[in-house]
């Protein structure tokens, strides 16, 4: 039953382990640049990017993360895109350097970096201008300095301070990471440092009125946000989840710290799917572990081993390729941008608009108009307006919110029922079609 085909895995991994930073950076660069080439216009992905750009000038100076955004906000969007891609590559480099300093197994590190580079949870913050991208970069900078011996370690607090001004949940995870690092190094000084960071985080939360978690910026779903193959725009591939499950249940005594981090990340994710990045990173760590648990030992059916490895690689690649196709939807189209430009030039500056929560951030940034909707609103006004059956139900809601215009993008209109609800009620004489272009419509409320 045993067969002896050529073993291709060992030499490939030996090569990868030697040059893994290079391959990780190339992979990340390709993955991040591909959507920009496909669309042809280097805009930022995701409504959160435009929320951050629009909010940054209004935030006080002590919101360091927003100050970082504000310094970039004066640049063209294309330049910000490139800076974010460079930030991603720098983040990977620092991850590599931290791993080397901590003497993490080169093969495992190489796989971890490669898997991270193709994971949606890592890609999406750097394809836009997300607070998470700032958290990643500055936390890694801080850790890099912290892993160095000597007095220079205290300068890491400068970078951690930026990461602490995002939200309470990110700060909590950072403190957990630091404590775990201290446990791993058996270094009391790290514990004290972690305690200091925790105090700083609590102070920042209480005095600076930081949100408990920033966002959300899309309709949240526990499963789809974690497993990108289920339609979410973040998370990891299902294949990595399978590997992670295997890694989770193998040789658990070897890495207790990772299980602590996993539990912390899982709790935070259940609390708010916006924190998907943390659980994704931990999942990829376990996926790398699971990979070696499966493929490192000699198989009795050697040809099956190569075939299974090929399946896995194809699966991850296919998952990434499908994701790359889908994320092009996270940018406003050229036609939408034209309509938003029309809104800016042709509607009163104080006009208040109604649109979907997702489109509201594009409208606020590109058209510089106030909107009545956002994902941060806890009430159901948006739902009630979209689903209103009679004009008697709709008009009081519009008046209550002082809505004078309604913006419906082509994608949004496709999701709404034609024969009832808002689209049907727009036929009423109190609504006038002010502008229309390729299915994107602007309606004036008289």
């Amino acid at each position, binding site marked *: 039953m045993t067969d002896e085909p050529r073993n291709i895995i060992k030499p490939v991994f030996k090569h990868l382990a030697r040059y893994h930073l290079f391959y990780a950076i190339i992979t990340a660069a390709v993955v991040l640049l591909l959507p920009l080439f496909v669309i042809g216009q280097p805009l930022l992905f995701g409504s959160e990017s435009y929320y951050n750009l629009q909010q940054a000038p209004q935030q006080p100076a002590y919101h360091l993360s927003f100050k970082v955004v504000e310094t970039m906000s004066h640049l063209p969007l294309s330049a910000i895109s490139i800076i974010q891609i460079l930030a991603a590559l720098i983040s990977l480099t620092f991850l590599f350097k931290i791993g080397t300093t901590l003497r993490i197994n080169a093969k495992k590190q190489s796989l971890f970096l490669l898997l991270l580079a193709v994971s949606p949870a890592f890609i999406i913050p750097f394809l836009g201008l997300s607070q998470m991208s700032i958290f990643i970069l500055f936390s890694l900078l801080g850790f890099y300095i912290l892993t160095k011996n000597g007095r220079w370690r205290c300068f890491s607090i400068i970078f951690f301070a930026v990461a602490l001004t995002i939200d309470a949940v990110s700060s909590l995870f950072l403190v957990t990471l630091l404590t775990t690092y201290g446990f791993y190094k058996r270094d009391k000084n790290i514990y004290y440092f972690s305690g200091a960071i925790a105090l700083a985080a609590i102070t920042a939360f209480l005095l600076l009125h930081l949100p408990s978690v920033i966002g959300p910026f899309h309709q949240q779903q526990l*499963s*789809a946000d974690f497993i990108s193959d289920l*339609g979410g725009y973040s998370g990891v591939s299902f294949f990595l989840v*399978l590997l992670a499950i295997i890694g989770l249940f193998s040789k658990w005594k070897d890495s207790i710290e990772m299980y602590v981090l996993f539990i912390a990340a899982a709790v935070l994710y259940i609390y708010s799917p916006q924190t998907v990045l943390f659980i994704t990173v931990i999942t990829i760590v376990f996926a790398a572990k699971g990979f070696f648990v499966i493929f490192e030992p000699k198989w009795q*059916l050697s040809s099956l081993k190569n075939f*299974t490895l090929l399946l896995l690689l194809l699966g991850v690649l296919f998952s990434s390729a499908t994701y790359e196709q889908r994320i092009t939807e996270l940018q406003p189209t050229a036609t939408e941008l034209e309509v938003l430009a029309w809104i800016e030039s042709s509607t009163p500056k104080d006009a208040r608009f109604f649109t979907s929560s997702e489109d509201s951030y594009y409208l606020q940034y590109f058209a510089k108009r106030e909107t009545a909707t956002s994902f941060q609103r806890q009430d159901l006004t948006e739902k009630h307006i979209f689903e209103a059956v009679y004009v008697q139900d709709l008009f009081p809601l519009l008046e209550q919110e002082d809505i004078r215009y309604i913006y419906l993008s082509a994608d949004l209109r496709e999701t709404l029922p034609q024969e009832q609800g808002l689209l049907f009620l727009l036929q009423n004489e109190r609504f006038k079609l002010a502008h229309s272009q390729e299915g994107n419509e602007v309606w004036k409320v008289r």
Partner: protein
Amino acid sequence: MKEKANYWLAFIFLAALTVRLVLAFSTPAFTYDSYFNLRQVDYISNNGFPQFHDELSYSGRDLRFLPLFHYFTALFDLITPDQFIPPEIIAKIIPNLLIASLVIIVYHISDKMTGSKTASLFSAGIAAFLPTLYETNSFTVEALFIPLIFLITFCFINLKEKNFVYYYIIAFLAACLTSSATFLIIVGFGIYLLLSAIEGKKLQKAEVEIILFSLFFYVWTQFLFFKEVLASEGMSFIWQNIPQQIMRWYFPQPSLLDTMLSVSIIPFLAGIYVVGRSLFKLKNTKEFLYISLVISTTILTWLRLVQFKLSITFFSIILAIFFASFYKEMVDFFKRTRIKSWKIGLPAITIILLAATMIFPALTTAKEQSMPSMDAIQAFRWFGETIPQKTTTLVQFEEGNALSYYAGKRNVMDDHFSLQKDAEQRILDISTMYITTFQTEALGLFDKYRVGYIILTPKAKSRFSVDNFHYITQECFEPIYNQEVKIYRVRCTLKEA
């Protein structure tokens, strides 16, 4: 002994096949869920590719499904000239042949487990007449899937033998390309690993490797075919976007009585005994695999992650396999007694009891298949021949594919719900169109779905307790067919000209 057993096996197989074909050909109709597959086979025979965009279903929609079963049947359709063996005849023969082949697979599995030819023949006999397998007019993927699944398990328990690894891989590949329900066996393998770890049983390395390969291969194939469905429906993909209103038809609350009747009481009781005994006493690895499959099926059914019909089929075949162990134990028991006539008595009594408890339920299942009536088929055929346009026609959703098959007309809805965002709304609207007393309401819905004709079949009459549509008037509805089935042309519209 082996030769004698082979003759008996051949006899059981031929008996099962004969009974199945007789029942299948007693009516020309197929079950409602067969017509989608018939249309796909027809399309593949003419075009070479599956029809992933269907102009007739829901008046035009995209489809995603696994096409191996359709290609498999289309192959037979292609190699046999239509004038000698029409496609509908092939569609009757192939599924029944495949299900009858379970007899052979079950025999060999039981033989491998028990080493007893006689006991294995009884298992084969039970598999031949399981009530749950007696939808003889059904032309669905399960006809290929069920034998494949058990072939996979047979290859798995024979991994040590030469070439069985390759047979396993081929069978598993085929199962993955036939039905997404292959995850039943993946979960079964997972429980098998778990039970083995708990029991401290040492597994063969090859078994673990094959399971890992199977897991990744299954996920990869499903992802390849269903990536849009997964992205669109997420976890709801498991429930195939079945509307809430009819969810209970596909995932009913399972009851012990229903299970016993579907499986038949003697295999059920024998199987429960074997499972109970195996869990607490013996460490027979081969039985553990099937016990794991029973546990996985039970859990998935309870969690409503697998359709009840499929799970009961799976369950009943495994119990048929376990009957061999039960029978062998009975033989060993009687050997220890002083009853001399047990050698004749035991098989005879077993055959009588099995026949008495299985044949009638099997025939009842065959008789109660959900199929369009001859009147409905005749009406659909007439409609297709008389009205050339592919106009949208109102029928119940179960009849949608039958209408498209016989009449070549667009339907408002059929029994494939994936990628249809308004499936629940359509179910509601179809009910309204049948039962409303207001003509304007009906006409509004006809305009919404561009319905040009409406059909009232005996099934619709029974479902909605109506003898006719309540809003029929001469000026708006022209009767074009008025027998047991009524067909009307819609003349009026609410929309402005």
